[in-house]
């Protein structure tokens, strides 16, 4: 292989290095919306009636469930949201006794947490997932390629996939009923709850409410608002009478999931400085070695 334009290569190498000096890697900043909506779930109030599941099904026009919504026998099954069900209620017996000395159940509603700095949004290759100013983590099927990186990234294991669709499968998850929010309505599940187990409002206000309930009745609650700090904060918040670990919640770090990976990506590839620098360096080396070879051939 012949390598002409050696001088040009050398110059290019030097130029590449000069242009591409690493700028100071910028510190990571949260991209959380400043004033999102939030929902507070008070686990001490939920009675496991599955009305929220039913409302979600109707509002989002999801397919008929296999088990009717008035059948409460499946509450113990530890279901997860899937491509046909955006929210589920599970029943736990964390060991608390009721006044008749029987094990008292705790019901836990599960849906997308709508993280403040969502891993799925950061991971999504095309930006099909985005965090809206109102707090909803929104899925735009028109950009999705079905790589399922969002599912691998989500710490709550929420995005579900239509694995049976051969050509146009979608990622499905709780939408926060963003189209209802736009009309000034509350999410379907919130509107229907007969015992006001879910409170909807601005996240700040709802968080305040949560802390108020805990401080007014410390015997009723554990002193923890789940979702206040977990993975940098979530739009759905929970307060509970039981240890969160006993009712299906994970112990998650306060650090937003995308922080490390985005810091790495941006430190390496901002303005493509590192590829340009490497190209310049390799060009310089290649120019030097090929010139040397030519001189050696000449001397020989």
């Amino acid at each position, binding site marked *: 292989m012949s390598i002409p334009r050696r001088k040009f290569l050398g110059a290019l190498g030097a130029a590449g290095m000069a242009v591409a000096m690493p700028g100071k890697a910028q510190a990571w900043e949260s991209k959380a919306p400043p004033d999102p909506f939030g929902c507070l779930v008070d686990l001490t109030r939920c009675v496991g009636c599955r009305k929220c599941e039913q409302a979600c099904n109707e509002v989002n026009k999801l397919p008929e469930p296999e088990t009717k919504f008035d059948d409460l026998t499946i509450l113990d099954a530890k279901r997860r949201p899937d491509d046909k069900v955006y929210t589920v209620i599970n029943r736990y017996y964390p060991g608390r006794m009721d006044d008749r000395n029987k094990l008292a159940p705790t019901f836990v509603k599960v849906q997308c947490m709508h993280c403040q700095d969502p891993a799925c949004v950061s991971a*999504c290759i095309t930006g*099909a997932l985005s965090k809206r100013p109102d707090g909803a983590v929104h899925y735009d099927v028109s950009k999705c390629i079905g*790589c399922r990186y969002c599912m691998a990234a989500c710490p709550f*294991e929420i995005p579900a996939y239509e694995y049976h669709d051969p050509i146009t499968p979608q990622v499905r998850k709780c939408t926060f009923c963003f189209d209802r929010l736009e009309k000034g309505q509350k999410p379907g599940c919130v509107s229907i709850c007969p015992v006001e187990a879910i409170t909807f409002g601005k996240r700040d206000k709802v968080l305040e409410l949560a802390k108020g309930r805990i401080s007014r009745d410390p015997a009723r609650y554990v002193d923890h608002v789940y979702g206040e700090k977990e993975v940098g904060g979530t739009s759905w918040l929970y307060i509970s009478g039981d240890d969160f670990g006993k009712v299906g919640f994970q112990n998650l770090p306060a650090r937003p999931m995308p922080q*490390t*990976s985005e810091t790495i990506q941006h430190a390496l590839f901002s303005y493509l400085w590192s590829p340009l620098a*490497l190209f310049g360096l390799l060009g310089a080396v290649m120019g030097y070695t090929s010139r040397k070879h030519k001189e050696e051939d000449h001397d020989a």
Partner: protein
Amino acid sequence: MTHKPYPVDRPFWTPGTYVMLVFMIAAALTLVVRYTFGLAAVTNLNNHYPWGIWIGLDVASGVALAAGGFTTAFLAHILGRHYYEAVTRPALLTAALGYTFVAIAVFVDIGRSWAIWKPIVYQNHNSALFEVAMCVMTYVTVLWIEFIPVLAERLGKKIRLLAFLNRILDKTMWVFIILGVVLSCMHQSSLGTLLVIAPTKVSPLWHTPLMPLLFLTSAFAVGYPMVVVETTIATSSLKLDSEMNVLGPLSRITILLLGIYMAIKVGDLIARGAYVTLLDGSAQSNSFLVEVVLGVIVPWVMLLFPAVRRSRKLLFSAAFMIVAGVMLNRFNVFVVSFKAPYASHPYYPAIGEVLVTAGAVATIFFLYRVFVTFFPVLSAQKQEVSQ
């Protein structure tokens, strides 16, 4: 030794090529089912385990094992060690085939194959996967451009376009050679960034912010062993000269490269204190031990001995262990280490996933055979001549 590559004159249809054909047909049938009834019909993927062996092996290991392409290009063309040019063409072919099949594996794995072009238009610069996708797309193109001279040497007279392209490339090839190395460094490391975003799901044995650096250094380390393995298999199955005079010195460089990887890997494990679970007997710990002990430490120690580097069989064994070790590392990171907190049972690849993967490997072998039979790729002298 001559560097002149030429097509091998062996009969193409052998029992080996027929076996590969069977695997290819099985994989093709599986793909018909996948595109008729969906991923659920042929895979064990689910909402807990969205990524299986098509990503863990076909993509992640495939990319790593194609590292022979850019590492030999760096040595022979950029550092100007033309002595090694005998192995650049087969390494280039392996890389071109490998990456082409990485792209095909991604195409099959994503649910909306027809939308595979969308990342070009809708870009998320925060996504490590976006970076990987762009690099792989570009690099596949670059690899086949680098391969044009080989095609032109044989078909230039028949296909004018090839000869024309070849003449242009004569002056500009350096751009593509450097670009190939740069793109490789970028996406080899970004492949390691992919699961950094899931610290709670990936076992601490593997999860570290250094994952990109570990992926990059292990790609450097596996490049020449892959050339050793691939050249040895090709030369012995085609009964050609073993090229030990090139492979021996290559394996000396590997001592340094694998040593760097080993130092970072072990140092990181100790610094994070993640070694505490190493002997708990879990599948994850055992898989980690096999990866590091049999895939890194033992072959590294083996390569220290000149007798190993001079012996065709021992050198092949050491190189094979390194290659298998890096493959296992990618499999470990993407499959073994991945624990879904709410999964009721672990992921095992379905028969359909295995068939497609096996079919992809068979197709690569098959096409490699096609190319070395009809195009000037291998430079090794025929055994008969050298005797």
